[in-house]
């Protein structure tokens, strides 16, 4: 009968060493809300489980360079209680807190949500919009990568053998900048996103958009950064025309599938609807910042 090892190292180096040694047979465990379900349904059968929750760095939330460093294993419930982070990047925190139930929030992490590799992960489009980067530790040291570069295909990431996402850097928020995330699910809770849209906009004193980022989830094999959608906003005063262009660009960027959660047509249309609505919220926030 197959045997499983469980290890709970206290340092990143130990965790990386163990993950590098076991390669594909190892899985890091943070909140376990994806990993344990996949093990139970026998989708995966890891031989080594590396619990990263005994590593202080992965559980920390700290200020850094005017922004925040958030450990990859910090649960949603903890980040949601951090008023400073909520005030700076409400869209990112809202997206994180949309994952699953209150119970899931007690465990689920940003690192897990990203590295699970689901195109529909809620926190990913929001982090993409906010320009979040992640710090990755590996056998050859550490590197920093934008969130949009992590997921390459459903269930697959650009992480190399032994690499572990250690933390996320939420950059300092520029003046008059606001972010927002909206997703569509059939119920009010407990579903996987059918469409997810993160939008971040920066305005000048006169209310003209000087910068924007738009992230899309669940509409393509991986979460997307959509420059064309951002371009539809930059230089405008976010008038109806700009919003319509945003919606069209967001829809145009979709490359979805028909599945049990929604049709292609539906996803393409609703991506535009939510982009417009999220941009509305983000710009309200930008104006009050």
């Amino acid at each position, binding site marked *: 009968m197959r045997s*499983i090892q*469980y290890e709970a190292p206290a340092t990143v180096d130990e965790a990386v060493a163990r993950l590098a040694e076991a390669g594909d047979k190892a899985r890091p465990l943070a909140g376990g809300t994806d990993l344990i*379900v996949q093990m*139970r349904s026998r989708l995966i059968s890891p031989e080594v*489980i590396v619990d990263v929750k005994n590593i202080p760095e992965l559980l920390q939330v700290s200020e850094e360079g005017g922004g925040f460093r958030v450990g990859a294993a910090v649960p949603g*419930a903890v980040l949601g209680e951090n008023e400073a982070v909520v005030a700076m990047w409400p869209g990112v925190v809202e997206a994180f807190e949309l994952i*699953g139930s209150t119970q899931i929030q007690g465990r689920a992490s940003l690192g897990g949500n990203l590295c699970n590799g689901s195109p529909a992960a809620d926190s990913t489009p929001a982090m993409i919009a906010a320009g979040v980067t992640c710090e990755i530790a590996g056998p050859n040291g550490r590197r920093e990568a934008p969130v949009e570069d992590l997921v390459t295909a459903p269930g697959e990431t650009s992480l190399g053998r032994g690499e572990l996402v250690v933390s996320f850097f939420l950059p300092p928020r520029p003046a008059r900048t606001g972010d927002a995330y909206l997703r569509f699910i059939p119920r009010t809770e407990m579903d996987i996103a059918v469409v997810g849209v993160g939008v971040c906009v920066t305005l000048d004193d006169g209310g003209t958009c000087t910068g924007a980022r738009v992230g899309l989830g669940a509409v393509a094999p991986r979460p997307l950064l959509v420059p064309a959608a951002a371009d539809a906003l930059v230089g405008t005063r976010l008038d109806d025309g700009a919003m319509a262009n945003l919606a069209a660009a967001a829809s145009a960027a979709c490359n979805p599938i028909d599945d049990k959660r929604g049709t292609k047509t539906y996803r393409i249309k609703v991506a535009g609807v939510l982009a417009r609505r999220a941009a509305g919220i983000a710009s309200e926030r930008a104006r009050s910042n």
Partner: protein
Amino acid sequence: MAKRHVTTTVNGEPREFLCEVDQTLLDALRDELGLTGSKEGCGSGDCGACSVMLDGRLVCSCLALAVEAEGREVETIEGMADGDRLHPLQRTFLEEAALQCGICTPGFLVAAKALLDRDPDPSETEIRYWLAGNLCRCTGYDKIVRAVQKAAVEMRAEA
């Protein structure tokens, strides 16, 4: 496959058990410790019937490994009443007929207590969203929400 030895605290008491690495906390509570009040409705974190507190956080015990309980504190439905004194939520669930079949009830109670411990005066909407991870197929939630509201009023009056 060698079992792991786990030392933990359950409902304030020190407990030890042996478990497989891939055994969930729910299975360990039920099968190793005989605490069958936590129920398995789905095994995937979608129904909340296995809700427990782990180091003061509400979690699904079907989505935690038993080995993760090492050195930590677990609270289950069995620890909710204070001796023969029911928690106000347990009492209001009975008074308001907030259970029909009762299989989801332990999970709802643990989750609702976690809510009132952090927010003594939640709105109806807050109660509904907080409890969205607990499925009840019998009641349509109406009487559950009312029972939580009533317990909140009583607990505020006592505080």
